[in-house]
């Protein structure tokens, strides 16, 4: 996604705003719109629509165009305004479009209507009072992707869907693992507590150990859970066997109190358990026929073995005297630059 200039993006969202701009300033909004939406040729117009957002539990804004659905995210801060050309725009919010898999939106409706019986998408939308659901299910949902979350039955031209819990959880687990790999690649801190992004760690402290695989899983699961209703989120958490944060904290303090010899055993055991889990989920995924390529399997491997942390040693008298002698000297790094 590429950020486009605010002014070029604005009139497309609200083309009628131009004549009124002298009077009503607040109708102007600042949008960051994906280039993908802007570059479509032809007279396809972007539309702002409201669909039910399962994570929020209420309808939310989406931008649609042709068959593309993008979520509209809003960044609001109190007492913030925009200065556009010579005008002050009192609506200081920033809106951004982010791609979303519409299957998440359909999943809610499938869970609601199709747990007991198979239904066609048309008949689901009949049951819903809201007209937008009809548009969502018939226009934007890719029938192929629904196979990941439902059993599909065809009878003549009609296609019926029945919600399948096992497939859904396997699919969500796959999504979670993808998020985990992205979190790792972007080096997002997922451990307990907050950590400054530009904090430079000391050479002596090897802190890889404080962020565990489960921390990444928990964070990723929360990300995915934002697009699920609460019930399904809980099911996913249980399915991935992610302990709650409080539970993890209690366990950690318990291991800290243990003797060193016991601690070693405990970590060895927990590694075994994790491995077993990894395989468990992996085989389930493979059985559920969701994995079409082999490259996904790599993400379901056991956690990497992290080196044992170095012991923090106190300085010897010799080192202290050297450090004392260093006072008043310039740093050598100020003469020699890093290659």
């Amino acid at each position: 996604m590429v950020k486009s200039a605010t002014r070029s993006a604005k009139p497309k969202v609200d083309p009628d705003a131009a004549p009124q701009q002298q009077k009503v300033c607040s109708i102007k909004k600042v949008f960051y719109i994906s280039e993908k939406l802007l570059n479509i040729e032809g007279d396809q117009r972007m539309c702002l629509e409201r669909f039910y957002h399962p994570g929020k539990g209420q309808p939310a804004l989406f931008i649609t165009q042709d068959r593309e659905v993008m979520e509209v995210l809003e960044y609001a801060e109190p007492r913030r305004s925009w200065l556009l050309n010579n005008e002050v725009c009192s609506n200081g919010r920033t809106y951004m479009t982010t791609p979303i898999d519409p299957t998440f939106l359909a999943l809610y409706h499938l869970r609601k209507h199709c747990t007991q019986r198979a239904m066609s998408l048309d008949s689901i939308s009949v049951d819903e009072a809201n007209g937008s659901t009809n548009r969502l299910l018939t226009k934007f949902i890719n029938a192929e992707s629904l196979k990941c979350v439902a059993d599909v039955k065809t009878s003549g031209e009609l296609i019926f869907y029945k919600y399948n819990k096992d497939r859904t959880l396997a699919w969500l687990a796959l999504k979670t693992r993808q998020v985990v790999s992205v979190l790792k690649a972007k080096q997002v801190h997922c451990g307990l507590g907050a950590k400054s992004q530009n904090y430079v760690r000391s050479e002596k402290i090897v802190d890889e150990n404080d962020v565990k695989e489960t921390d990444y899983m928990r964070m990723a699961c929360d990300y995915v859970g934002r697009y699920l209703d609460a019930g399904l989120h809980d099911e996913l958490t249980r399915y991935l066997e992610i302990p709650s944060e409080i539970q993890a904290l209690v366990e950690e303090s318990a291991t800290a109190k243990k003797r060193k010899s016991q601690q070693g055993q405990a970590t060895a055991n927990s590694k075994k358990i994790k491995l077993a889990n990894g395989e468990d989920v992996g085989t389930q995924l493979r059985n559920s026929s969701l994995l079409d390529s082999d490259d996904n399997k790599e993400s379901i491997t056991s956690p990497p073995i992290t080196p044992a942390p170095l012991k923090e040693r106190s300085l010897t008298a010799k080192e202290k005297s050297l450090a004392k002698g260093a006072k008043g000297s310039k740093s050598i790094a100020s003469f020699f630059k890093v290659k």
Partner: protein
Amino acid sequence: MFEARLGQATTLKKILDAIKDLLNEGTFDCSDSGIQLQAMDNSHVSLVSLTLRSDGFDKFRCDRNLSMGMNLGSMAKILKCANNEDNVTMKAQDNADTVTIMFESANQEKVSDYEMKLMNLDQEHLGIPETEYSCVVRMPAIEFARICRDLAQFSESVVICCTKEGVKFSASGDVGTANIKLAQTGSVDKEEEAVIIDMQEPVTLTFACRYLNAFTKATPLSTQVQLSMCADVPLVVEYAIKDLGHIRYYLAPKIEDNET
């Protein structure tokens, strides 16, 4: 596969003794041209640069470039287990997390090997620019060690002043002042005892005495030491390791506030 073999363990012992006081750990970068180590001390005031050329070893093989992070204290402990005349061989696999150090007595009657865990050190390599130094002093290493030891009793810092008359080391403190002047030797009969001064411009610089003393731990490696100085640039103290390479210490000058 990496394998390097030296005829005399004592050389390696001396090298480790020369760096282990300044550095707790360091990365040995091995390539087919030899072994290099570059690291700053904890206070980031000095820099140690060690170069051992591959042709100086009895046997040297390095299939792939390899960086071995080592705890130098542990390495020194292992080398203490060697007799001075033993052959010493360092071995490591590609991507290994341990290094094997093997000692063999001259008649092969005793062979001992030690395996040491390697460390992952994220040390940055510093680029050292080519510098034309205003003064280059060559002098006996023992003499330099003696001067540093003597002056350390008077002050934390030593002023090195190099003019065409010679080089002057001075220190002043609560006890009093100390000045040691060395003039260039007139006749060069024995090269290892000569003081040779190559001066373009006179230089006066102040350095931390404790660091100079730490550098003199390399004295057993070489009969001569070379001091290169230039205004507002780190001092270079270089000890040549015969037939093998050299060890260079860079020391940042002290910030002078009482100088005019």
